[in-house]
């Protein structure tokens, strides 16, 4: 990273925790985060040019291992964050429920998975990042030029493909995006530039096994970061990419729905999640979760009708 020696950064991250310094070929400062249930993108440009003084580190691994709840400590750190500063949180699992909480407070995130029980999440306010090389916030922060509408940009060495669908009439934006995704190389990110959130595309992406992150840069300028997720072997989670777990209860007999949902929830490890698909708002289910698993779950609507409801239900550690 500019101005910061990579080995020094790694040593600072490991400071006081007696973590083994990774081998040079696994230098995490240059690695893309491995996806779990949360979508991710290449490191935003604004996070690669930070002055060390702009980074507020908060390591809650000890509290979590001790069974304590660090939420108030995290919120306090967020409150005290100076303008332009970044909160860098380290935890023993991916703090999925925090994403929605902090998003509501205006924070985006970028996640790094160092190991199964070692995660770093960068929380930052979008729009305060330094601009890219061309003077405008880059789609992947790489300063690449915006291609002609409907044309995918040539694949640069850093694994980002840009597809500008502004100016295309429906359903061309979705068709073009799905077409590019068919041949998207492994470990590459497709960035769709759109005028609005592609509401019909997003559920299709989840079903096709893609993760996504929608960033509204400004009214009329939306970027959707799309990346393929790996498949998971039957019988348990992998140590690498984990596919989205989708529980579609529309086909389950009524009296078996809630048992199936709770069976799936109880099989999750802390930090894991699944997407519930239903044909109506599962609000009664939410009440049951509140009653039986208060403080143990996260609940985020991904789609709210009118035909299909999707809720990401996560298990909080």
């Amino acid at each position, binding site marked *: 990273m500019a101005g910061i020696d990579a080995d020094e950064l790694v040593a600072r991250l490991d400071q006081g925790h007696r973590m083994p310094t990774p081998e040079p070929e696994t230098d995490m400062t240059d690695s893309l985060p491995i996806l779990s249930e949360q979508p991710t993108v290449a490191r935003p440009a604004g996070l690669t040019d930070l002055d060390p003084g702009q980074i507020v580190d908060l390591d809650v691994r000890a509290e979590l291992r001790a069974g304590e709840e660090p939420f108030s400590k995290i919120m306090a750190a967020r409150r005290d964050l100076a303008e332009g500063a970044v909160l860098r949180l380290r935890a023993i699992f991916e703090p999925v429920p925090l994403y929605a909480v902090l998003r509501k407070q205006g924070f985006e995130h970028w996640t790094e998975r160092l190991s199964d029980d070692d995660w770093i999440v960068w929380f930052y306010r979008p729009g305060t990042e330094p601009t890219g090389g061309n003077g405008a916030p880059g789609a992947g922060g790489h300063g690449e030029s915006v291609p002609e509408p409907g044309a995918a940009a040539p694949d640069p060495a850093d694994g980002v493909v840009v597809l500008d669908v502004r100016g295309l009439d429906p*359903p061309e934006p*979705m*068709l073009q995006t*799905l077409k590019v995704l068919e041949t998207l190389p492994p470990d590459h990110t497709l960035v769709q530039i759109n005028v609005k959130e592609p509401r*019909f595309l997003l*559920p*299709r992406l989840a*079903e*096709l*096994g893609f993760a996504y992150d929608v960033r509204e840069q400004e009214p009329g300028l939306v970027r959707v970061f799309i990346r393929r997720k790996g*498949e*998971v*072997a*039957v*019988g348990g989670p992998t140590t690498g990419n*984990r*596919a*989205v*777990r*989708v*529980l*579609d*209860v*529309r*086909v*389950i*007999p*009524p*009296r*078996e*729905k809630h*048992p*199936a949902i709770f*069976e*799936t929830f109880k*099989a999750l490890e802390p930090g894991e999640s*699944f997407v519930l*698909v239903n*044909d109506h708002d599962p609000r009664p289910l939410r009440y049951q979760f509140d009653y039986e698993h208060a403080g143990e779950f996260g609940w985020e609507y991904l789609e709210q009708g009118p*035909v*299909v409801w999707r809720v990401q239900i996560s298990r909080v550690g």
Partner: protein
Amino acid sequence: MRLALSSAAAPDASFDELLAACLRRGFSALELECGHGHLLDSVRAAGGDAAAARARAAGAGIHLAGLRLAPDNGEAVQSGPDQRDQVDLLALVRSLGVPLLVPAARMARAPRALDTGRVMVVLPAGGAALPALDEVDSGGRSAARLPLAWDVDPTAADISTVTGDLIARAGSRLRHVRLYGGGPESSGQEGRGIGSLMARLALSGFTGTLALAPSRASHRVAWSAWLGQRGGWGCGSTAKDRQLVTLSTS
């Protein structure tokens, strides 16, 4: 996982009527069976155009999940353009961009299909599924890599005894499940293991297709009403000009 409607739920419906039914009921995918009213596999279909059908499906946001051989149509895989009433199915699935779903029992009669990379082997319902998988895997390395589909019929027997073993054995090769029931039959299938099936598929990270089809032909009237079609499916399927058939979500 994506939820698909099988054309078996409306065998007389045209392709566009099937798309409309998918939209009406929130299905994100469509499973096609040979010999049904969509006519994509019939050379006599007026204006039949696989590429155009594929584009219409994509435009509606509906994924085409596969083309399934009818139960007595295994020989069609070996037929070529010289079969008068049947298009070359392998060419058709290439145009549609879908796999051809072939029952495991018929694979021996379709050696040509094995090398195309377009075939998905359908394991039968019930206790015959695991022995069928053994037989497929004994067919050599190319057969052992074939993607798998699985028919699940909870109306015939409790599926709980087979579900766990089959999902574990098939692993990521399992790409398509046809569930007989669901939809309007759902409330009558309690205690048959469907909830457990769905939970196990979710936990295994299954990202394939779950297609719903009627468990009995006698249920088709109920399916037709559930899909929003009063009376029979329209005559648009025989219209020469497919532009006259429009998607309707009403």
